[in-house]
Structures are given as C-alpha cells and as structure tokens.
C-alpha cells in the first residue's frame, strides 16, 4: 500500500489520521468548528471502515468523562472539541491527566462566549493552560494529520502516559482544503503499535483508580503528574523526530523562519504563523532584519529550545490569540516575559493580541506591526490589534 496525496478538508484529514491510528473508542459531541472530524469518524464506524465504538454523548463533559472511562479500561481513545465544549470539559481535563490516561483530543480552536462567536482564536485553550496535558499547536493540514498520529505515540509512551491536545485553528485550518499526503497504513502501524496500558480496570487484577487524595498524598500525586509532563518534552522531541523521518518531514519543538539571527522576531502559534511567514519573507526582501519563531509545543514549554531559537534577537513581537483580562499582557507574552526574566541578553518583548473572534489579520498588518515595533510605537504592555484607539 502506497502513500497517497489528496486534496482534502483538514478536518477530514484529521479523521483519516485517527482512523489510521486505529482509535478504539471515540466519544464526541457536536460543536462548530470541530464537528466535521467526528462526523467523518462516525461514518467510518458506521461503514465498518474503522473498528471502534463511537459514543455520541450528550455533552462535552460526558465526552471527556466517557474518554476517561474508556482509557481507564484500556482502549485507545480519541475525542475532539472547541470553545464552549472545551470549557465544559474543564473539570474532567485535570482528572484525565491526574489519572495518567493517554487520551488524544483535537481542539479546533475557537473563541469563547460572550458574545457568542464561532470563529477562531485561542481563548479556549488558553483558559486550559494548566490542565497538565501535553499541548501541541499545528499550522497546516499535513502537520495536523501527522501530529494527530504522533500524539497517540507520545501519549501512550510509558514514560509519558498523559493526555495530548492537538490544537488547530478553527475554520482557518479545520475547514481549509489542502493537499495532504497520507502515509500507508503499514507505515502508521509500524510507527504506532497497539496501545499497551500500564494500568487498567480489570477484574482479574482489581485496582482502585481515582481514590481520595488525602493531604499527605495530594502533593505527591500532583508532583508525579508534573514530573511526567516535564519529562514528556524529551519524548515529544523524540517522537516528532521519528515522525519526521517516517513521514518525510521535519518537526521540531520550536521552528524558525526567515533571516538567520535576526534582530526582531515574530513569535506565533498556530496557523497565523503562515501569514506572518509571508510578511517576514516580504520584509526580508525589503532588507529588514526580521525573522519568525513558531511554537509547536506549548506544554510542557520548551524553554531552552525557545531561548536557543531567539539567540541574538533584540526584540520579540509576540502574537497572542487570546486576552488575559486584568493581567499585563496576553498569555504567550506572559510566558515569554517569565522565561527571559533577569536574563542579561533578554530581548524586549512587545505583545500584539490579534485576530480575536475570527477578526481577519492580513499579511500587511504584520508588516505594519513590525514598522511600529521598530519605531517603538507599540504599547509596552500589549496592543489590542484592530481596536481603533490602539491603531
């Protein structure tokens, strides 16, 4: 069986990836813009193309709860959600990681109400930064496909055993029709062998999962999970490298574009990175000293890798896709200001919060941001891009 290249909506490509990964239980609830993924998966199950149980749950809270139950019983589990759905899962997201269950979830990133908005930004996942999951951001359809498969390998690695969220921008990415090269099933099967649970619900060997964490053990339980998350960075790097080799691409925790050792760097996560890349290319052609850093792994945050990618830079223009009301700047900028704090050669960090609720941010806008930053005309805290009083 050979690999095939097809023009396909990215949501459907992700569904195909989940099928190729041979997920055994899929529990999901409809929410825009995630729905196409699970619709396609339910079709695979209905047609016998995927031997899985599809649980059409009555809410996202139950989607994650059923995922926890199924993973605890030893199945390979997948779900997908967006926005309000992710917010409704909130409570159970922490429990999934605390119980060390390797669930894979696509988050088709969408803004949070109110006002209600179905369009893209990162408000949903930024409210879930601390759930203890491995969190990846993808930029295009090929990456979405391959990292969905890789996510299972990361999650199920016995050095990790944590859930993984694969973030992809709603509509901007999920609903695009892109050329995607699918690996042969045999390639995927070799890359991703069947899931072997380290612990599962089994009457032959009864285990109590989710006991009461008395004060004398709660802290140790949290520490165990945090350490697993910190240690997962090396496994993510290893799996991404192997995925790169297997699928003939190159995946790093942090990627760079544009002029090497540039003085100014844009920092992006997700598909807006493609627009920034176009802007940076244009600016480089005009002789501007600018490059781009893309964050692929958001949790655990790859501090050394990020700092290495920024070496020599004097200024970071951090594009946030979510607000952190009442704080000093957006969530990604907060993270970066923290990691550079008191570094001797720390770059200046300017923050632009852009593209909230699906607001279009064309390539020209990024060029404008660069010019303003260069003149020192961007706010020291953050700029809410597109709001008149800031422009």
């Amino acid at each position, binding site marked *: 069986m050979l690999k095939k290249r097809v023009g396909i909506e990215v949501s459907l490509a992700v569904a195909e990836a989940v099928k190729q990964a041979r997920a055994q239980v899929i529990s999901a609830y409809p929410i825009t813009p995630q729905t196409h993924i699970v619709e396609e998966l339910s079709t695979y199950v209905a047609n016998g193309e995927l031997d899985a149980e599809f649980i059409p749950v009555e809410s996202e809270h139950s989607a994650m709860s059923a995922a926890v139950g199924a993973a605890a019983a030893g199945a390979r589990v997948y779900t997908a959600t967006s926005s309000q759905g992710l917010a409704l899962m909130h409570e159970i997201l922490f429990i999934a990681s*605390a*119980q*060390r*269950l390797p669930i894979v979830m696509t988050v088709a990133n969408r803004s949070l109400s109110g006002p209600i908005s179905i369009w893209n930004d990162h408000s949903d996942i930024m409210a879930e930064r601390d759930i203890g999951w491995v969190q990846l951001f993808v930029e295009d359809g090929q990456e979405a496909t391959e990292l969905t498969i890789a996510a299972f390998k990361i999650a199920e690695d016995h050095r990790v*055993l944590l859930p993984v969220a694969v973030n992809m921008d709603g509509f901007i990415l999920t609903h695009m029709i892109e050329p995607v090269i699918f690996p042969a099933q045999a390639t995927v099967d070799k890359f991703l062998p069947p899931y072997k649970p*380290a*612990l599962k619900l089994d009457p032959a060997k*009864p*285990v*109590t*999962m*989710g*006991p009461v*964490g*008395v*004060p*004398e*053990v709660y*802290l*140790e*339980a949290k*520490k*165990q*999970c945090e*350490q697993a998350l910190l240690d997962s960075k090396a496994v993510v790097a290893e799996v991404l490298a192997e995925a790169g080799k297997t699928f003939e691409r190159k995946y790093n925790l942090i990627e760079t574009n544009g002029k090497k050792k540039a003085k100014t760097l844009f920092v992006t996560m997700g598909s807006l990175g493609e627009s920034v890349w176009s802007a940076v290319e244009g600016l480089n052609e005009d002789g501007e000293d600018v490059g781009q850093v893309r964050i692929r792994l958001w949790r655990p945050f790859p501090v050394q890798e990020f700092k290495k990618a920024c070496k020599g830079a004097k200024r970071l223009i951090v594009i946030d896709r979510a607000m952190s009301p009442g704080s000093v700047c957006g969530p990604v900028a907060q993270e970066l200001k923290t990691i550079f704090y008191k570094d001797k050669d720390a770059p200046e960090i300017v923050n632009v919060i852009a593209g909230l609720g699906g607001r279009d941010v064309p390539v020209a806008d990024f060029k404008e941001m660069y010019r303003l930053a260069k003149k020192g005309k961007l706010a020291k805290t953050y700029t809410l891009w597109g709001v008149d009083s800031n422009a």
Partner: protein
Amino acid sequence: MAKKSLCAWQDLALGAAILAPGSAAKLKTGDWRTLIPRLDEDKCIKCGMCELYCPEFCISEGKDGFFRPNFAYCKGCGICANECPKQAIAMVMEEK
C-alpha cells in the same frame, strides 16, 4: 508541625491508584465503638440475620454455627441487635 507525606512521589502507583484490593481491612475501625454487641447463645437460633444486616461486613459464622462479629471492625451501630428476631443480641457499654 507540618503533616508529612505518606510516601515519596516516585513510589506512588500511576495516577495515585491503589493496587492492593481490600486493603482498607488494615484499618481497624473497632475503636470507633462505644456500645458492644453481646450474644446470648441460649436465645440465638443461628439464623444469620445479623450477618446479612451488618454494615461492616464483619459478622461471620463460626465453627459452632453461631454468628459473631469481628471486633476489630465492629463499630457498635446496633443494627444486629435491632434486627435479631429473637432479641439474642444486647448492646452494652464496652469497658475499655
């Protein structure tokens, strides 16, 4: 003084699961008791209702056919005495 941890985090099972089924049996709840059931063997008909209705699951049939609680667990609730069809069990103050 600050409370100590029960074990090092490295020694916890995955997800702080408990691997030893029924290990609560290590906890002797008998010291919760103030009243203690006393069986009158002359009245007892060995029907076993006390065993059925014991919420501690600690009453069992002995070799002699009488049902007696394991006092390591008996919390002294008195259900056995209340349900005994022959009033063969009396709850009395335990001398400790």
